[in-house]
């Protein structure tokens, strides 16, 4: 059975748990997306933008040097970081911005954590002449100040949200509240595979280009399907995009790596599937970090993009059915991988993506122990580049911020 159902369900997960004022907009969006998706002219326009504007297809890079630290595994990187604006987020945003125009709406709003989705939305809005407002948790505006400036340069208004944990969750609440009020002329351009139906489905279809390309590239250029596919999971849009076309390939193991922050036991983490429970958040039933009364617990991750106490309902479904495995990766392990990949391959990953890199390394080392005869190919979604995270890395590694040596001066 193809999922979601017409009502937006993935088994027990998904649905439309939103105020009634939004139900009509969600129905309109579903209808508009289905019509667009069946329209060759929409696909032609989207593919042209993906090719000429975003830079698709993105290549697969064999991380030969880094692989030497990963047992017998070969790590291959699907280079979503090479997209325009520096992350997979643009895949979804271009599709939804075109949809906004088709629906005759003139304004988009978005929520963002790390800023990648906000920057991508501001970019598409600039390109297509849409008014744009981005909601960002106040904490995130501080740790991602560079991206705030980028959005403003692109012409977007950036609103800092001072409520709750002041991170992505609260930005999403505020964007929902904006949308309830302005739904007539505004599209809420959700950045992940979360929220009410049809967003988990719609965003998956737009991000699916990652696995469609990757599957073809692996067969054509790398000797066949990968043994494992890995991706980081916050809300889970890059992961669902990376997994989707491999779901029907039983030989391919799917691994999602969640943010373990300072450790599950500390309570300061964002490992929703690992340590959460089924509940309703932001319009969908899914796994949620919540207390026994159903109040959402604040999440924590060094990565603003993974710092979210929910996860897309399709991931909850894949976890429940066992088709995908979800494991947590700590801040410390992610930052080690961040540094190792940078030093061995000359690729600075987004800290989000570094979680996937760290998880892939751990998987490679574990397989070397359990199955030393295997030489697995692990395909990792390098979902974004790390330029935006330089300040965080600077703090984490305690870099002095001064040159190593001064030369050429006069006595």
């Amino acid at each position, binding site marked *: 059975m193809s999922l979601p159902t017409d*009502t937006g369900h993935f088994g027990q997960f998904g*649905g*439309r*748990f*939103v*105020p*009634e*004022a*939004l*139900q*009509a*907009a969600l*129905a309109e969006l579903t209808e508009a997306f289905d019509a667009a998706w069946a329209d060759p002219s929409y696909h032609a326009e989207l593919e042209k933008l993906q090719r000429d504007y975003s830079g698709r297809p993105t290549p697969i890079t064999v991380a030969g040097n880094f692989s030497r630290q990963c047992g017998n595994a070969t790590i291959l990187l699907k280079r979503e970081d090479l997209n325009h604006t520096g992350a997979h987020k643009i895949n979804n945003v271009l599709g939804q911005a075109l949809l906004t125009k088709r629906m005759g709406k003139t304004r988009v709003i978005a929520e963002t954590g790390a800023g990648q989705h906000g920057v991508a939305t501001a970019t598409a809005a600039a390109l297509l002449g849409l008014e744009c407002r981005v909601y960002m948790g106040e904490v995130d505006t501080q740790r991602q100040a560079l991206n705030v400036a980028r959005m403003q340069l692109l012409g977007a208004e950036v609103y800092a949200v001072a*409520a*709750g944990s002041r991170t992505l*969750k609260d930005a999403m*609440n505020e964007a*929902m*509240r904006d949308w*309830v*009020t*302005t*739904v*007539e002329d505004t599209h809420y351009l959700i950045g992940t595979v979360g929220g009410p139906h049809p967003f988990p489905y719609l965003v998956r279809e737009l991000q699916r280009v990652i696995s469609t390309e990757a599957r073809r590239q692996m067969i054509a250029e790398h000797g066949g399907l990968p043994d494992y596919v890995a991706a980081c999971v916050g809300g889970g849009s890059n992961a669902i995009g990376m997994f989707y076309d491999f779901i029907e390939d039983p030989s391919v193991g799917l691994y999602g790596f969640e943010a373990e922050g300072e450790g599950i036991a500390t309570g300061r983490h964002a490992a929703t599937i690992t340590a959460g429970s089924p*509940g*309703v*958040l*932001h*319009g969908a039933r899914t796994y*949620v970090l*919540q207390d*026994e*009364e*159903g*109040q*959402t617990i604040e999440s924590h991750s060094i990565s603003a993009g993974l710092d979210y106490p929910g996860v897309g309902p399709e991931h909850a479904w894949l976890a429940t059915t066992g088709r995908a495995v979800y494991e947590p990766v700590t801040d410390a392990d992610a930052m080690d991988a961040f540094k190792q990949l940078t030093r061995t391959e000359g690729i600075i990953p987004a800290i989000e993506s570094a979680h996937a890199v760290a998880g892939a390394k751990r998987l490679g080392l574990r397989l070397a122990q359990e199955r030393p005869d295997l030489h697995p190919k692990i395909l990792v979604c390098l979902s974004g580049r790390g330029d935006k995270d330089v300040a965080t890395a600077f703090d984490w590694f305690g870099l002095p911020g001064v040159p190593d040596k001064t030369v050429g001066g006069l006595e």
Partner: protein
Amino acid sequence: MSSFTDAARLGNTGAVVSSCLDAGRPALVGYLPVGYPCVAQSMEAFRAVVEGSDGRGADIVEIGIPYSDPLMDGLVIQHATVKARARGVHTRDAFTAAETVAATGAAPMVMTYWNLIEAYGPDRFARDLASAGGRGVITPDLPPDDCPEWFEASDAHNLDRVFLIAPSSTDERIALTMGSCRGWVYATSVMGVTGARSATSDAAPVIVGRARAIDPTVPVGIGLGVSNGAQAAEIGGYADLVIVGSALLKCLDSDGADMPGDLRRLRALSGELAAGVASARP
């Protein structure tokens, strides 16, 4: 006189509305969150909303349960509920509030986002609320077409279930939603979140008219944006229930430091609103 005659559709709170209409006026619904400024003082506030300034206040009280991710709430309610949570309010405090309200003679209902009921267990929640004297539940984010367990639980414990309609609702959704309600239907007068507004919405009479035409067996309440007696009188001219929330909550503006003063203001406003609905249908 009330035109609502189907007792099964009216349930507990629709019957209250019907008797108000028989008395020539719409019903007044007052909302406050439990736990603000603290749990104990919020109980005094609930009593004040019912008693009003001269024994005339709300007929039905909406007891809000503070939630971490309130999609429908404007700033006034958000600020109060954040404080209530920080001060240790719990889901079960809503049952204490229901007892408090029931003791005044008004009909207590609970307004809550669905996840809190799901976490408590729908059947257990309905049982405990009904035991405390609660008469029904308003669920602003629960789609009426996706909650069989809530139908079972609310039926099993004889609680009304009130869902929302909005100006953007299609006729099909209005029919589905009203068909799912027992008691009355909550119509939001504007597209937006909660909060007192200076002028009433042009959309309010339109949504009431549409709802009535689609399903005349369930009373229609108007909420969002009502802040004073004059507005209550205006809306009460055509709606069966007038719902007031943020404006009442704004009276509790001393954060508990001057609670007698707050309660005086709260009683005065509740009385003014009650007088407003009483004069709505001369």
